[in-house]
């Protein structure tokens, strides 16, 4: 089964040395996932200020500048992993780097019959 691991973090972190370290850790994790046959995709996202939300209300569509939810912690990237169960997916989620404060949401993906 596939799980989407959504990375939420504070976009305030700008220290280039720390960012470089985190990026390197992501590269290592990606390699580890690939080697384990668990890697099914993943990307880093540009900052939420670049986001556009297309909202439909009562069938009428409108555009909004910004992310879906204006919160301090924003969606910053994701991994898609192939895992036998939630526990295995959580084990991958725990390995995702991101500094001292961040959150990973683990969501199972509907599998097509």
């Amino acid at each position, binding site marked *: 089964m596939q799980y989407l691991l959504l990375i939420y973090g504070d976009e305030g972190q700008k220290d280039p040395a720390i960012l470089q370290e985190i990026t390197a850790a992501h590269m290592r994790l990606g390699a580890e996932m690939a080697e384990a046959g668990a890697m099914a995709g993943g990307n880093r996202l540009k900052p939420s200020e670049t986001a556009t939300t297309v909202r439909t209300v009562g069938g009428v569509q409108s555009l909004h500048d910004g992310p879906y939810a204006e919160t301090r912690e924003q969606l910053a990237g994701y991994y898609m992993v192939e895992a036998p*169960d*939630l526990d295995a997916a959580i084990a991958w989620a725990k390995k995702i780097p991101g500094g001292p404060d961040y959150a990973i949401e683990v969501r199972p993906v509907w599998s097509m019959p």
Partner: protein
Amino acid sequence: MTDAERVLAGAVATAGDRIRAALAIRFRDLDMAEEAFAFASLRAVEAWRRDGPPRDPAAWLYAVGRRRAFDLGRRAKVRQEAQHDAPEPEPDPEAVLMAAFEPIPDERLRLIFVCCHPALAPEARIALTLRTLVGLSVGRIARAWLTTEIAMGQRLTRAKRKIREARIRFEIPGPEAWGERLEAVLATLEIAYAQAYEDAAGATDAADLAAETLRLSGLLAELLPDEPEVLGLAALIRLTESRRPARLDGAGVMIPLSEQDTRLWDDRLIAEAAGLLRRAAELGRSGPYQLMAAIHATHAARRDTGETAWGDIVALYDLLLIVRPSPVAQVNRAVALAEAQDAEAGLQALAAVAAPERLADWLPYQAARAGLCAMAGRSREASEALRHALALSPAPAERLFLERRLAALRT
């Protein structure tokens, strides 16, 4: 009650947990297991009334439940393929008889770990454990948590759906997850017992919830005899439960621990707890549950010695506050300190408590302050604290106790 019903009740009491757990683990579906077990119980009453009870009622229930779960699984599969339901096959007495010789595997530990998975909300874990493992009715669980049967049913359904849809592993966790998973199990049992304890003060049919939590903690200690904190929690629950008969007076007024009639305490539970704590100590890894149990064991010793070793209790609280700091433990330590030294020392410690809300609006603080002020001979402050405490909606038994104290100060 008919003979068949009596035999069924006996089999459910002795082997119900094992059968439910074995079905759940075998089919990896809690709903299906529940339905299969209910079906088997229903069939049992019919068949046993007609043919007399089987030689091994538990094995019979397991065999029929398993067959039912197979059928349910097959029908679900057929439905998925958008065909008509196959007619339910006649139960085959031969197969039931053959299966009866297969021992029921003990899957209770695996099921505990599934129900207490940390990916489930704590209140969902408790409800799921009491429902699935112990077989408590949804209505009974709902009453203990002061919610409706519908709301509790929905909570259970959500939890079961998450286990299925997110695919929570039906396995005993490996060493990499062991600490976190075991902690979740212990916390679940601790909260369940705390609720049972509260529940016991008012409800009339309360004993069953406490009894089931007691049993569950004993079962866990039996299944994990080398985990000292598991033994510690089982001891803690036994020690607390041993005092149930002494907690309220005839008028329903709370009696504080240090004033309880020790002759009313349950010897058997205290002895069991002592045995558990000894075994835990031999394993040589201390922890918060063992420390809390040790505090209660020190209180229990008053039964034999006639006095409480308050100094020891303060020292144990000091250790507990290092491994698991909490405002409640701080309050209790302050009260013990007052007994070990004097009321002023206790009041000083009490003033330093880091309460979860404004200290003055926190019931345990005001209740403890009232006691310590009275002890120090400061009646006016004691009355003030009691009035404050009464305004913070204490439980009925405690309200009566506080009111009585207030009346005593006035005279």
